[in-house]
């Protein structure tokens, strides 16, 4: 049943190719975001550009919504909003989660285990509901921070456990026995951590926070009107998308493609949730 899943050289090169495709896709997305004002034919939120709920046509490639807004322009602006919020959120998730977890594992055992316990409790709560709670305790304007902070506990736990396993390996014990201090070992391991897994972890965090951010906006806890991200656009389309599919389909497609690029760049296994 499982004898053929060992990654062959062909499989490895395919993975490398997909990872490169993911990074190229993310790069193109960043370019599109930075040029969003030029790529969009209408300003963000401009209503009455076309007829109400017009289906996709030569004049309006993505159709129009219930206020006559050009869906192509709105999708480009929404993508821009989503990416601009997701990048700082991913950085927060990365530093508060993965890097802190990796470093916390090297602390004195009682302190390290206390942090692990705390992170474990937070990780027992779905990240989405944790983000809702953080926004409830702060403000909607803090959605990016909330998404990053709520994605962090799981990253913390994973990095902590990985670091603890590393500390039981023979090479770690040999290095320690040569007289290297714990802090010197931590600095060395952090360099390796940055070099080997930073890019993949960043892309993984980006995929995770993009899902959280867009879902937050869909639930009404993220972006605030009139500035709309993709999640809020889909939420607004919920009332009439059953008869005007394009109002939800194109923002959803843009969101899915963004998450797909991040997943490919992270080299996530098939189906694995970031």
């Amino acid at each position, binding site marked *: *049943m*499982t*004898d*053929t*899943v*060992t*990654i062959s050289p062909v*499989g490895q090169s*395919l993975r490398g190719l*997909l990872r490169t495709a993911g990074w190229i896709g993310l790069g193109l997305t960043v370019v599109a975001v930075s040029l969003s004002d030029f790529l969009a034919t209408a300003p963000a939120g401009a209503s009455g550009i076309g007829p109400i709920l017009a289906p996709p046509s030569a004049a309006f490639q993505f159709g129009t919504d219930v206020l006559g807004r050009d869906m192509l322009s709105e999708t480009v602006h929404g993508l821009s909003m989503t990416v601009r919020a997701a990048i700082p959120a991913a950085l927060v998730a990365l530093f508060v989660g993965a890097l802190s977890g990796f470093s916390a594992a090297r602390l004195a055992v009682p302190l390290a285990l206390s942090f692990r*316990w*705390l992170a*474990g*409790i*937070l*990780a*027992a*709560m*779905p*990240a*989405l*509901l944790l983000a*809702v*709670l953080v*926004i*409830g*305790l702060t403000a909607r304007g803090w959605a990016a921070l909330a998404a990053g902070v709520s994605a962090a506990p799981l990253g913390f736990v994973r990095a902590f456990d990985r670091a603890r396993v590393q500390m039981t390996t023979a090479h770690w014990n040999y290095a320690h026995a040569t007289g290297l201090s714990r802090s010197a070992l931590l600095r060395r391991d952090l360099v390796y951590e940055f070099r080997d897994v930073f890019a993949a972890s960043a892309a993984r965090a980006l*995929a995770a926070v993009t*899902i959280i951010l*867009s*879902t937050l906006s*869909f*639930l*009404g*806890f993220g972006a605030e009107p009139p500035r709309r991200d993709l*999640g809020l656009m*889909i939420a607004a389309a*919920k*009332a009439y*998308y*059953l008869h005007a*599919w394009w109002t*939800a389909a194109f923002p*959803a497609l843009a*969101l*899915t*493609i963004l*998450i*797909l690029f991040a*997943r*490919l760049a992270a080299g*996530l*296994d*098939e*189906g*694995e*949730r970031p």
Partner: protein
Amino acid sequence: MLRFVLIEAGRLLLGLLGAALMGAAIASVAHAGDGVLQFFSVWGEQLFSFARLRFGDSAISGLPIVTELATSLPLTLGLLLEGIVVASLIGIPVGFLFGMGAARRAAAPLIQIAAAVPIFCAGLALAYLAVNFLQWPVQLDGPAWFGSAVFPRSLAEAQAALLPALTVGLAGASAVQVVMSRAAATIAREPWRTQLYRMGLSRWDVEWIYVVPQIFAALFAHLGEVMLSLLSATAVAEWVFSRPGAADLFVKSVALRDWNAAGAIMLVFASLTLIADFMGRCAAHPLISRGTVR
């Protein structure tokens, strides 16, 4: 085994204590502006009340939180249960199928795309297909049209109940198949498999006596992770399909600053994850002990 269960039970109790501390802290948020000492005093009182399963009254409805939970939690647990059934029916066969290299490679691009779809988009897509292709009555806005029944009493209710169950189940199936595929890939690289073949055991014996239990052990060991996926999906499904469950209540409670309800629901959800993790680890332990994978 007994020692292992006792250690895990200790971990569970510590986790539950932490969840109770956090739930009580959330319930005390309303007093955060009264000074640090006042907050800690209220926090202690809340923790004491939580220990006696007294969660206070809802700031929205004025009803005791226990009454609110008695109404909304069965809906959420019912949806979770339906999701677990769908996740098992889909996720386990797919997990085994994708354990095989050829099928895994063939389906990989499709699975990657499917996994990139956020749960709320999947729920809306299911609703669109049900309305436009199956002509099912689907309620997306406003109050749930078939009340608060846990189990459907008619065909229309069953149709309405199927979509959220499918949404939760698909999210769970994704988590299940990932854990199983990952375990299958890890076991495929274990040297003991080759050694078993060299001992003269048939492929069937090696797979079904040694490999399959290890894959299930991995699934059990990651039950907490699967539960997290299911709970997230439940929150989204309840919102999309207007089901007045506990996850929906949590979102509304936070929005309306009903911290008593938010703290109690958070405690319940964290407890569900911790208990699933505990049960999964205990179920996995004898399977892992019997096999050779650690």
